[in-house]
């Protein structure tokens, strides 16, 4: 295993814009066939991360590699093995959609023409119109088709499905699953949590240019608070000394709280009372992200109530 080269490798990669630290010593690897989601609030540094990986921006320090090739100094060789979907696709207004696909296919060095036609059909894309007349969603389809039709071993995506309607979003997720089944590696930045949940093996969360969370979804779920909802009859259970619980609400026969870590102390405490129903669930991805993105820790709490 020691000799296998990661498909994507960030090694203490930093990017500063003047005084602003957009990316701070990012270290992250993506192995072959992995699907990694890059998450974070707006302005967290996701696009800077991807543009550094693509050699469009030079890291202030550290390096980014694709299949062991330096992203900045060796972009041509690196780009032979990847395809990229930007979040916003600026078109040449005078070229038709079909011509743009031809062009990008030619520049990519090769593509699967049959697969392109299939994608054009599946995305219900009309390639005969001039670039200027496409809507945002249709422009995004050009980017998606142009990237997927190359069948590159690495797919890099920056909010790839922005502007797609729900039907097209489902089609796009099908394509991601197909790419995953073929063994393509994907690094995906997205705000669409269902997309991330559906395809990603791992997620990395950036905040203010720093990698704050990293792991499989199951790990992240496990490490975070579970929501407990129960009802009681008669005397409420005494929860004052229970370790690992917070946001406790006990009133009128209803208990709601969050528990982190072992549930054993909580269950023992609840057993002291009459508890006819108990529900415990993992945090939803959305709740996880509320936790990740929430910067209120840095702000003195004083708004409760």
């Amino acid at each position, binding site marked *: 295993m020691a000799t296998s080269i990661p498909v994507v490798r960030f090694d203490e990669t930093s990017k500063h814009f003047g005084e602003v630290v957009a990316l701070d010593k990012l270290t992250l690897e993506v192995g072959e066939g992995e699907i990694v989601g890059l998450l974070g609030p707006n302005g967290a540094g996701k696009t800077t991360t991807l*543009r550094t990986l*693509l*050699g*469009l*921006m*030079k890291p202030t320090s550290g390096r980014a590699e694709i299949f062991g090739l330096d992203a900045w100094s060796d*972009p*041509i*060789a690196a*780009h*032979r093995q*990847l*395809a*990229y979907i*930007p979040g*916003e*696709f*600026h*078109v*040449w*207004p*005078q*070229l*038709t959609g*079909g*011509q*743009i696909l*031809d*062009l*990008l296919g*030619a*520049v*990519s*060095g090769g593509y699967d023409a049959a697969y392109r036609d299939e994608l054009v059909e599946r995305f219900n894309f009309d390639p*005969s*119109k*001039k670039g*200027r*007349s496409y809507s945002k969603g249709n422009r995004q389809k050009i*980017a998606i088709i*142009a990237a997927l039709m190359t069948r590159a071993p690495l797919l*890099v995506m920056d909010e790839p499905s922005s502007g797609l309607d729900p039907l097209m979003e489902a089609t796009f997720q099908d394509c991601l699953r197909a790419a995953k089944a073929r063994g393509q590696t994907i690094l995906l930045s997205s705000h669409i949590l269902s997309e991330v949940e559906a395809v990603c093996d791992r997620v990395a969360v950036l905040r203010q240019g720093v990698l*704050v*969370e990293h*792991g499989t979804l199951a790990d992240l779920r496990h*490490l*975070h*608070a579970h929501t407990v909802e129960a009802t009681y009859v008669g005397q409420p259970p005494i929860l004052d000394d229970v370790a690992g619980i*917070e*946001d406790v609400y006990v009133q009128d026969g209803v208990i709601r709280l969050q528990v*982190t870590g072992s549930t054993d102390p909580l269950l023992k405490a609840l057993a002291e009372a009459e508890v006819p129903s108990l529900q415990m669930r993992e945090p939803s991805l959305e709740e996880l992200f*509320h*936790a*990740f993105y*929430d910067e*209120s*820790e840095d702000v003195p*709490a004083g*708004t*409760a109530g």
Partner: protein
Amino acid sequence: MAITLHRRQPERPLAVTDADQPLVIEARSPAAVWWRTYVHNLRLLRNGAVAWIVGLAGISWGVAVTFEDRYATPEELAAFAEFEGVPAFEALLGRLVGLTTLEGGVLSRWGIFGVLAAIWGMLAAVRLLRRAEEAGHLEPLRAGAVSARGLLSSALAAMATVFALFAVAIGATHTAAGMDAATSWALGGAAALVAATFAAAGALASQLTPSHRRATGLVGIFLGLALAVRIVAAASATPEWVWWATPLGWLGFLHELDQARTAVFLAYLGLLAVLVAVTYLLADRDLHAGRLAAGTDVVTGARRPVTGQLDLAIRLTAGPARTWGLVAGLVALGFGLLARDFSVAVADLETMAELTAMLGYPAMDTPEGALGFAFSWVGIVLAVFAAGQVVAVRDEEATWRIEHLLVRPLGRIRWLVTRIVVAAAAIVLAALVAGVLGWLGTALVGAPVAFTDGLLAGINMIPIAWLALGVGVAVVGLAPRLTAPVTYALVVGAYLLDFVGGMLELPEAVLDLSPFRHLAAVPAADVNVGAALVMVAVGLAGVVVGAAAFRRRDLKEA
């Protein structure tokens, strides 16, 4: 890896709960909204306006303060005054009146400065009224409490404001320079009205087509026609009233000898009113639409596929190359047609020797000399085309379209060099077309220069355009966000340095900085091979420096 845990926060109320807020937070009056958009437009115009006002008013002021030193003796003044009524000079410079007076000397420069003011006006208007719309900047404004016409009128008012400042700058500086106050202020007013008239034409073109390039092209054609009519008006056989058929001709009647200032102002104000009224009527249209049928955006039938980035570069260059090649060709044809008239008139001048010395052009009494004198105009056209290509290259980066190509296995240097080589080739083609048409012009009026001489006159202009291209590439690499202002300023500045530098009594060493000064008057003189080689070498160095810097820097959005 350290895992940070974040405590779930209870639902926090918003700082301002909205239940008790009125529906309209601050009921701004329509006038206040309009004022805000006016200020916004003024801000967009500010930097360009400062550069144009300081540049044009400053150079003209320089002409005024150095006039008496320049023409210190009666002989020198008399030689200068012989320009009056000579068709080819008036074709170049506009109508010439009262050249023995300071006022006449300064006004004689405004045939060209007026064209520059017109270009400023048209570019400013298209930028404010069409480019901003194309880029999506107008959409949020139009979603506000302001109508399409309100937005238009605020932009027009902002332009009127900067043009009024332009008038004041000229009037005040020229009066201070010792020019007759009435003439100074008349010049200021008329110069502002030229800029305003072409801005109004730009505003009208912006209502007609959905693309800023096409709008610029339309108003550019209008400017070209206005200039063509002025050139025709200069010919000896043309009746006097033809000067009045073009807004660029009216500027020639500002001298007090003509007693025509009221007519000049009425003419500008009348045309301006018509243009503004039509623009206002047409402004009530769909967002992103034009009033002219734009053709369909759906392409039926097979289209030739774009086979790669070289093909893309050719397609992106072809349109502007056709337009600018046509302009260079028409300029060459026009001067070819005038060459005989010009050489005969010069041969009749008593001060032929002084004139030749003053202008530094040889054999001006021959068609070859006339063509050599005129072809520097072809040079500026080609250099402006080159600057435009550099700006177009930067535009691919600024709009981030370049990303689609550079994330694929295509190196930055190869992409950049391909674009530049295609532009350089387009310059060669345009120069050859200009050469052939220059020859054709002389042949049509029965005073033909040799075909190879015509061709050579065109070829002689290639190095200076390549120089502009190369220096522009260096700017793209080193200071990408300044590409358009710096590149255009270098080209126009170099031309003006040559054109008015002599009059400003600048030291020779400074004047020699302008490459236009080193263009030989081919075909009357031999190609200045040394200068040509230096220009090509500096251009190449610019490409090398620019490409190396472009390879080493981050891509930068607009």
